[in-house]
């Protein structure tokens, strides 16, 4: 069935711009920030947010020499930290890239496309601990669709999208998919027989991006 578009390119740009400002404000500038995206689309979002924050920090002219260093960003793969490895087909991990300065004593902002059960973020917190000891860890997501299974709450949200568990949220990004859009579709009408209850209710994958849908 056709997916319904809920965010257009302009909406996504606006959301990211706002999040960038909020991060700068909360952090009182760009110093000590490290953005880590969770593959696949979180990585692109982290890169775009880092560029926006770097640009806004430069325009605010807060640095002494007027040329603030770019905000470091990287990728944090959480596959090996997941708690559902025995319940899904084997996932291939993606590379983890920690910026050269590391994360010790930094303010790490985790970036993901969709926040759902919270289990991916739980995995990410474990993964971060194996790479160092940040001063603080924050969470930025483009879409929060609810249905949390863990006491995890985002610090920065592009758009709250209350959804049914049978619905699928697709995040498309220019760098990965050639287009910026967030769409929503009802998979219950696609699924001919009874949907796997384990998949749909008790153990929802928390980032139901298109990439995962194809696995």
């Amino acid at each position, binding site marked *: 069935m056709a997916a319904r578009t809920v965010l257009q390119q302009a909406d996504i740009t606006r959301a990211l711009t706002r999040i960038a400002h909020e991060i700068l404000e909360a952090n009182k500038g760009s110093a000590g920030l490290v953005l880590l995206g969770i593959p696949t689309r979180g990585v692109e979002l982290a890169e775009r947010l880092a560029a926006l924050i770097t640009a806004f920090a430069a325009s605010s002219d807060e640095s002494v020499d007027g040329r603030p260093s770019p905000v470091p960003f990287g990728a944090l793969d959480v596959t*090996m930290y997941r708690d559902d490895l*025995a319940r899904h*087909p084997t996932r*291939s*991990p*993606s*590379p983890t890239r920690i910026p050269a300065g590391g994360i010790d004593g930094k303010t790490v902002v985790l970036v993901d496309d969709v926040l759902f059960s919270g289990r991916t973020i739980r995995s990410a917190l474990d993964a971060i601990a*194996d790479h160092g000891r940040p001063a603080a860890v924050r969470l930025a997501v483009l879409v929060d669709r609810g249905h949390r299974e863990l006491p995890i709450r985002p610090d920065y949200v592009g758009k709250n999208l209350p959804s049914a568990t049978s619905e699928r949220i697709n995040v498309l990004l220019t760098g990965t998919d050639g287009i910026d859009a967030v769409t929503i579709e009802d998979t219950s009408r696609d699924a001919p027989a009874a949907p796997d209850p384990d998949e749909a209710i008790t153990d929802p994958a928390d980032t139901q991006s298109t990439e995962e849908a194809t696995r």
Partner: protein
Amino acid sequence: MKHLLSTRDLDRDTAIQLLDIAEDMAATQQREVKKLPTLRGKTVVNLFFEDSTRTRISFEAAAKRLSADVINFSAKGSSVSKGESLQDTAQTLEAIGADVIVIRHGSSGAPKVLAESGWIAASVLNAGDGTHEHPTQALLDAFTLRRRIHGDASRGAALDGITVLIVGDILHSRVARSNVWLLSTLGAEVTLVGPPTLIPHGIDGWPVTVAFDLDAAIADTDPDAVMMLRVQTERMHDAYFPSTREYASLWGLTAARFAALPERAVVMHPGPMNRGFEIASVAADSARSTVREQVANGVSTRMAALYLTATGGAA
């Protein structure tokens, strides 16, 4: 992937996926915290019917880096040597709660029998069976070769057009068999070199070239890699060749042959080496020798193999 029994039935995409995951595993081994929680709560049994400390500790390190519980079961000198069958041993391990059985066995096909018998539900990982296969050794060899050739651009890459000489006792070598299948699946051109007494009959259908003259093979193939196989001491007294000296002069990687190799060629050996016999020290210790990398890469590759076999529910 439920089991890893051979490289013969590993398709190209799966092989590359496994090598890529090994890259991720290798990256974690550069961190201060090398341990991953991936297999927490899983039990890996190293069931070794043959002594092989090197392979066993490599698998043990791999399993522990993934947080699995590891039980080492050396079947030599245990009840197994008193006539307990493979079936009874396997079912004992199953009762203990083994999720993965890493098996080294002197009888070709024992891992496959174990995996397909219906005796157990655990995954089976072949750590060397008789003269059949040693798939993780071939995977770590391919991983090592790929890194030497493609460096940081290894991820996703294969070995297309790479020429490899595998030299020595092909007949009794499970390392050679596994490498023949895997390297050719990855696009490499493989030439087997050794005395005719140590080349198996019936390999016309293998994707390889066979040569008896090592010097000519080096000149003809201009190899990217030379893989020297260990010659077991028991072969030396069983009329496969007249003397160790003659073997070394005809099929050993002597200093002169090492010098005749192209500059880019790497020297591989699965270990342990018979220095001065199948390989001269000048070759074994040179910067072009991958012997120590192979050991380190063994852990990453076996982590990848354990990850792929021990995780994954519905396919």
